[in-house]
């Protein structure tokens, strides 16, 4: 069936009372799961699987999808209020979101996050509706050289994230690259940098690093600065609890950026949502008229990554629903669910199970609206958390950090790592090393190394295809340009100085 009739059919399915109910349940669960570190959508969906065995497939996938994209709405809450990423893709929101909270704009940040999530989430579903098959073909054409070039471009963004000291930013990035290589090499089963610890064979969990460096490091830095100076101002009055028109206007491009970047990168199997949010953030900063505000509380710095991680869900569903290829952990579980319900996920799903496909797509439009209505009124409520006295809030942050780090794996070892990374985060902030590049290196390093080695294996050691293939060639060129930007800036300063000295 064509798109228009498919969508109509889908709404007929999605608007059935039971499916509306499941959509709401999924969105609510997803929001809760996203807000709380230590609970991820993947784990929640897996735990609910046995309960869904008897469910009708359309209702089941509607609910599970609701958990999936609902979590992206909730993930920004703790990122903004407590500097704790609620979900791995929300880590970039910490950068500017928490700074906005420190300036008393917590409500505005939460509101912008919700609105960006809504806009980009809806755009993602529109993309899924209209261009799923051609976009899936585009995703398949992406091979390892293109992935490598994309990761290089992402890493080049470190230049933009380094603040004042480029050298320190690069060093932080390199430490991130090192940390992510700890574990077992995929290609040779060689264990690297595990210091004899079997617990490190699987590598270090990203949440442990992010929570340790961001949340715990920040708590320690705040305690050092003295409690009086660090009281988070609580916004008062409705006007201050929601974003102002100026802030929303400033985010116009960020909404588009987040939607497009998130969707396109989400389509690529194996590219996680953290990558799309970093890219969207980097692009936003690169085209901004006031890039120095990023990292200090720029609303676009919240809108772009938050939008990206929501559009990413729409993108990730493209290969799942059109090709039966799961892009990552959560979509893999959704695939298992579809199999268990007897729905066959693959190229024939759209035609053989239109109830499931179109019902799901239609329910996502509804779901995004439900989530916006659910989240916006919660904003003033959540902002009140900041009213808690600092001596209650800070131990609470430490407690939530423990839950977040322990929740996924249940290992005391991870808590030990958390303690270590907390100290690292504090040391970095004292010595003025920017922490964002470390996280960026950690997120991208593994994928970049893999993509390079795969590319060279495919071309039998030849580096030329990396630049010859059009898409990867262009992205690598862009990466080089971005890396050279500080050089241009330096040359410019030299030139200006020469002019003023001579003139």
């Amino acid at each position, binding site marked *: 069936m064509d798109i228009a009739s498919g969508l109509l059919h889908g709404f007929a399915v999605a608007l059935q009372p039971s499916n509306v109910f499941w959509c709401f349940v999924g969105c609510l669960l997803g929001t809760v799961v996203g807000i709380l570190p230590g609970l991820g959508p993947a784990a929640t969906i897996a735990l609910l699987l046995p309960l869904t065995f008897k469910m009708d497939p359309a209702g089941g996938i509607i609910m599970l999808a609701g958990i999936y994209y609902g979590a992206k709405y909730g993930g920004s809450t703790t990122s903004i209020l407590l500097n704790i990423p609620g979900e791995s893709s929300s880590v970039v929101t910490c950068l500017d979101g928490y700074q906005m909270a420190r300036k008393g704009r917590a409500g505005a940040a939460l509101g912008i996050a919700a609105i960006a999530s809504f806009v980009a989430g809806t755009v993602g579903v529109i993309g899924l509706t209209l261009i799923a098959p051609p976009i899936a073909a585009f995703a398949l054409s992406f091979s390892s050289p293109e992935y490598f070039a994309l990761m290089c471009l992402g890493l080049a963004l470190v230049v933009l994230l380094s603040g004042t000291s480029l050298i320190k930013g690069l*060093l932080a990035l390199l430490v991130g690259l*090192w940390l992510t290589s700890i574990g077992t090499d995929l290609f040779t089963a060689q264990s690297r940098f595990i210091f004899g610890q079997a617990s490190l064979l699987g590598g270090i969990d990203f949440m442990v690093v992010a929570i340790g460096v961001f949340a715990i490091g920040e708590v320690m830095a705040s305690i050092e600065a003295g409690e009086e100076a660090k009281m988070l101002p609580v916004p008062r009055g409705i006007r201050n609890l929601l974003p102002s028109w100026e802030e929303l206007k400033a985010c116009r491009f960020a909404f588009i950026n987040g939607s497009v970047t998130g969707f396109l990168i989400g389509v690529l199997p194996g590219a996680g949502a953290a990558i799309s949010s970093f890219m969207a953030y980097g692009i936003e900063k690169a085209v901004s008229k006031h890039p120095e505000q990023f990292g200090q509380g720029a609303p676009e710095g919240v809108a772009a990554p938050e939008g990206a991680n929501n559009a990413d869900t729409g993108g990730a569903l493209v290969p799942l629903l059109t090709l039966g290829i799961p892009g990552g952990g959560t979509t893999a579980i959704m695939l298992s669910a579809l199999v268990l319900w007897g729905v066959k996920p693959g190229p024939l799903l759209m035609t053989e199970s239109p109830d499931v496909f179109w019902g799901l797509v239609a329910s996502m439009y509804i779901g995004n609206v439900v989530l916006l209505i659910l989240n916006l009124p919660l904003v003033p409520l959540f902002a009140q958390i900041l009213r808690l006295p600092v001596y209650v809030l800070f131990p609470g942050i430490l407690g939530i950090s423990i*839950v977040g780090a322990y929740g996924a794996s249940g290992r005391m070892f991870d808590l030990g790592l958390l303690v270590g990374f*907390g100290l690292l985060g504090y*040391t970095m902030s004292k010595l003025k090393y920017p922490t964002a590049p470390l996280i960026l290196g950690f997120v991208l390093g593994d994928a970049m190394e893999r993509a*390079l080695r795969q590319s060279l294996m495919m071309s039998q050691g030849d580096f030329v295809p990396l630049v010859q293939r059009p898409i990867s060639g262009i992205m690598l060129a862009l990466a080089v340009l971005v890396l050279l930007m500080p050089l241009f800036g330096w040359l410019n300063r030299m030139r200006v100085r020469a002019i003023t000295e001579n003139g």
Partner: protein
Amino acid sequence: MVRAFLKNGDVISGAALAALGVYIMMQAHAWDYYTLDGPGPGFFPFWYGAAMVALSLLLIVNAARASDEGQAVDWPATGRAMATWLAFALSVVLMEFVGFLISFAVLTFFIVAFIFRRPFATATVVAVASALTFHLIFPVALSVSLPTGPFGF
């Protein structure tokens, strides 16, 4: 002059990172750099280790050329932060033996009473209330597991 230079944060961290870089390169040397099938496990670590060494040396050189003395360290403040960290670390160790609830309550008590210097009564109330809240939300309501001790919580 030299002593101030050596105590400079950039210099110390630069030296530490240079040492890390050297360590990385040494480890990478033990693995295959390039195999029949392409770069081996030693390829990437070698290069980012080398970059680490180069950049940290550059950092040290820059610190030597910089004219300012750097900021004096506010030791009491740093001490507070480090005490908090130490308490956090010890509470994690404690968790292994007596579980999250008790360890977290102790940690909270310590932070409220000694770092923020509130009265013991306030500290006790906050500690107990926070610990119970965590316990009710996470293990009880959401089945998220937290470290447990011999008492089952």
